[in-house]
């Protein structure tokens, strides 16, 4: 049944073209129903999932002469992310209830994107995974270039080229791995079990890892992310930051690290600038990303850029968690994927839909005098909650995830963990600054009543905000919900190669 999350999204996209001309409301409802159906399937699978099992969803030969199969499977890690996709896709539609321009096409592209994202998370055959991974690229481009704002064509093209360069690197690595392993199978399990030579892993690991990590916003390849997020329409920003960046992180964990564990772990023969292995390199880059993203977010004038750079910072946590290579750090990284997906979605929804769609400006200096905390209090409250969650206050998902990663990092890289602490503090500051400037700036002059009073927050927006906050609180209060299936998945045979070298 889980495979239908993919098909139903594609079918929903196709059905958009069958709707009569000008049926905007119908298109929204159809899109929402499709997303809800996808979520329901994901939730059902999540509930039924027996911990630790690799659930085979579909497995049929696809291109027999190359040993390529249409093989969909799910374990705890992919189920967590599928559930996230379901939640973000529903709320994304709720927050794009106001799209009036070419509505049907908007939702068609949106649903194709969602379907392909489900596909990536479900693929067990790497050829299939790559197919879905590339399908994601094209709808992203159109969503941003047609419905976006600030420098949308530039942002869209930059994002697409970065994604494509990343996937080109992945493709080189996958083809090389497939050929070296004897060209019998593209199955993740088979390739992960093949003993690639150390020499090969040493070059293939960084290639594939960076290829995926470009999409996960690894510093210094992150520059597509802020411009892309800012240019994108609200729903697309939510998807981009919420799930598409997770595709990159998922690929790093699921493909690069399982296929080429030795390339990750084995120390180099020489130390270079104090770095002894690829693991050190990427951990350092992740920490630079955390601190750099937070520092840049601190000085932004554009509200959406603050959130865009905060995404870079939070994605740094995920990559750092992956590099800790201990159970607490890795599972923290997966929880952070979920948590950041929810919170980034919420933050972009507040900035893009609740504020920008009403005020038509994102300049913090202009927003201040509008007294938004009195005009649209719901937005202010939502942002305060989302900001607290994003800072990592206890009770929200962000706290659990970042704490686990920090503990993991403390074991693995004590020095870097200190820097991460600094990053967290700056994180508090930039959220505080944005919150204060956008919502609570005391205007010196008497507030002039705006010519057009801002529309009140609509029901779909409230609903979307409540769903996202609820999800974050639920995971924050009861993290075992996710950890119960993530940890057994990390202990599965797939990760044997990693566990052999330095798993604690």
């Amino acid at each position, binding site marked *: 049944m889980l495979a239908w999350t993919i098909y139903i999204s594609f079918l929903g996209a196709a059905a958009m073209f069958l709707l009569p001309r000008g049926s905007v409301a119908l298109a929204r409802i159809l899109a929402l129903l499709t997303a809800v159906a996808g979520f329901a399937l994901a939730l059902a699978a999540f509930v039924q999932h027996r911990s630790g099992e690799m659930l085979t969803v579909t497995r049929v030969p696809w291109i*027999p002469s190359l040993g390529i199969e249409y093989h969909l499977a799910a374990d705890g890690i992919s189920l967590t992310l599928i559930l996230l996709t379901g939640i973000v896709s529903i709320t994304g539609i709720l927050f794009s209830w106001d799209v009036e321009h070419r509505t049907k096409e908007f939702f068609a592209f949106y649903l194709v994107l969602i379907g392909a994202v489900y596909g990536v998370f479900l693929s067990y055959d790497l050829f299939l995974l790559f197919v879905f991974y590339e399908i994601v690229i094209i709808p992203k481009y159109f969503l941003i270039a047609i419905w976006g704002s600030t420098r949308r064509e530039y942002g869209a093209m930059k994002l697409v080229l970065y994604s494509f360069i990343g996937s080109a690197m992945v*493709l080189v690595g996958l083809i*090389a791995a497939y050929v070296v392993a004897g060209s019998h199978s593209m199955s993740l399990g088979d390739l992960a079990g093949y003993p690639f030579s150390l020499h090969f892993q040493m070059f293939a690991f960084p290639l594939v890892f960076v290829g995926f990590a470009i999409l996960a916003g690894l510093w210094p390849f992150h520059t597509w992310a802020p411009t892309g997020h800012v240019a994108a329409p609200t729903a697309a920003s939510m998807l981009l930051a919420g799930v598409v960046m997770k595709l990159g992180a998922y690929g790093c964990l699921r493909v690069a690290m399982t296929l080429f564990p030795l390339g990750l772990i084995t120390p180099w023969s020489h130390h270079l600038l104090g770095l002894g292995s690829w693991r050190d390199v990427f951990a350092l880059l992740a920490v630079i990303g955390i601190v750099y993203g937070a520092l840049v977010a601190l000085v932004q004038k554009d509200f959406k850029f603050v959130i865009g750079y905060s995404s870079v910072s939070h994605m740094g946590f995920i990559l750092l968690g992956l590099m800790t290579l201990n159970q607490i750090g890795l599972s923290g990284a997966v929880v952070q994927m979920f948590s950041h997906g929810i919170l980034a979605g919420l933050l972009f929804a507040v900035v893009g839909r609740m504020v920008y769609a009403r005020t038509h400006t994102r300049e913090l200096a202009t927003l201040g005098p509008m007294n938004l905390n009195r005009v649209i209090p719901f937005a202010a409250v939502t942002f305060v909650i989302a900001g607290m969650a994003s800072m990592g206050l206890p009770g929200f998902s962000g706290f659990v995830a970042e704490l686990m990663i920090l503990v993991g990092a403390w074991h693995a890289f004590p020095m870097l963990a200190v820097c991460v602490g600094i990053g967290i503090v700056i994180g508090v500051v930039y959220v505080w600054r944005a919150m204060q400037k956008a919502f609570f700036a005391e205007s010196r002059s008497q507030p002039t009543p705006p010519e057009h009073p801002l529309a009140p927050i609509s029901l779909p927006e409230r609903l979307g905000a409540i769903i996202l906050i609820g999800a974050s609180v639920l995971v924050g209060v009861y993290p075992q919900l996710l950890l119960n299936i993530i940890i057994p998945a990390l202990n599965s045979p797939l990760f044997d190669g990693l566990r052999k070298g330095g798993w604690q």
Partner: protein
Amino acid sequence: MIAINHAQVDYAALLQLAWPEILLVVAALAAVAVDLLLLRKQATRLRFAVAASLGSLGCVAAILRLALAPVHANLLDGTLIANPLVRLVQIAVLVLTIFTLLLSVDSQFTAHVGEFVLLILTATTGMMFLVASQDLLVIFISLELLSLSLYILAAFSKRSLQSWEAALKYFLFGGMSAAFLLFGFSLLYGLSNSTSLLAIAGSIHGPSLNPLLVIAIVTTTVGLGFKVAAAPFHFWAPDVYQGAPAPSAAFIASASKVASFFLFFQLATLGFAGAEGSAALPHIVRGWVPVLALVAAVSMVLGNLVAITQSSLRRLLAYSAVAHAGYMLLAIVAHTQQSLAALLYYVITYALATIGAFAVIAVVEDNKGSDQLSHFDGLARQAPGLSLGLAIFILSLAGIPPLAGFFGKFYLFVTVLQSSKGLLWLVVLAIAMSAVSLYYYLKVLKRMYVLPLASDAEKFESPILSQVIVAALAAAVVLLGCAPHLLLRWIEAALQASGL
């Protein structure tokens, strides 16, 4: 021609084997006769419809004959051969010819309808012999039959100066490259005292390369590099793609590519067997492989970079064709059985996408006057079906899954790497360059889908036939992308059965 002195020429067998070509020629003559004798006074469209139907009928008859006839034959030491692989390529060429003929039905560029169809079919006949021969003389004669037909086809739009210019350039460059090819062939004959590819391979075998052989390899590469539009022998391509009438350009870009690449592979692997050398890093060995590797690398880089700056869709496709020629040459560099399968899959799906793109371009030109990229602004609002078709063709050329172009690239690169790990540098270059190519392909899509329609846009008419052709080709590209095995199984079976 020592071989012939000993062999008894069996004319009955020759006739048996040449049936498909005979059917084509008969259809061509019928088309001319009917057009000139009966339909002279009629409207151009009716004349085109009748002539194209007769031509297509001839192609269908030839396909049926190919499908039913015995598949293994070898006349006079490979002068004319039949095996499942040759048959497959011939059928692919015929199918592409049918699409070209149908595409021409709605065109207005000429009143010489019968002659146009005749030339298309003589070119097809040339291709049929070209792929079915392993003898230098027959190869050269069929190649000239093909080329001379194509030169005239390129010039067929007599009212257009661009068409003249294109044809003249094509002819001059073509004549030059034919001279190179003939020079190379004569050296090969001198080296081996035979025109049969297998005999040539037998006699050039040796520990070191004869300097004359090196010259022969280089000149042959120049001649065939011209046919497949590989850099730096591609100068004719942008002008011909832009100036020739749309059906001619589509034909030159598709069917002729399929035949030429197959010939190139045959000639290199059969004729130059034993002189391969190696392009695998870090030890490059002299031979024809490094020459082709260099040509491939130059084509990929130059084609993709120059395509970025084009403002006409046809020129853009021409430079992208140069780039694709570079990718496809990699299969010849790899020269394994799998790489031939990958090459055939790639070139056939590439040809389908290219014909489709030209079908859309033809309609846009009829409505807006030229193929400038700015004429595609907002096309999705005026002609959603055609735009979707063009988007599918372009994304397939860019190699985006799940379209046929993606699997073509994937399989091609896999087979290249399988042949030798040392070719990784070429695979990396190819994949990097295809990332570059996405930029200019997306620019076309952006115009169709993102930019608004010009406010003074006139009514847009898309003929039904063109829509049907585009829909059929788009369906084929999607289907072959989602289920590559449909075509791949056939290619592999043919390879097995031909014992290559």
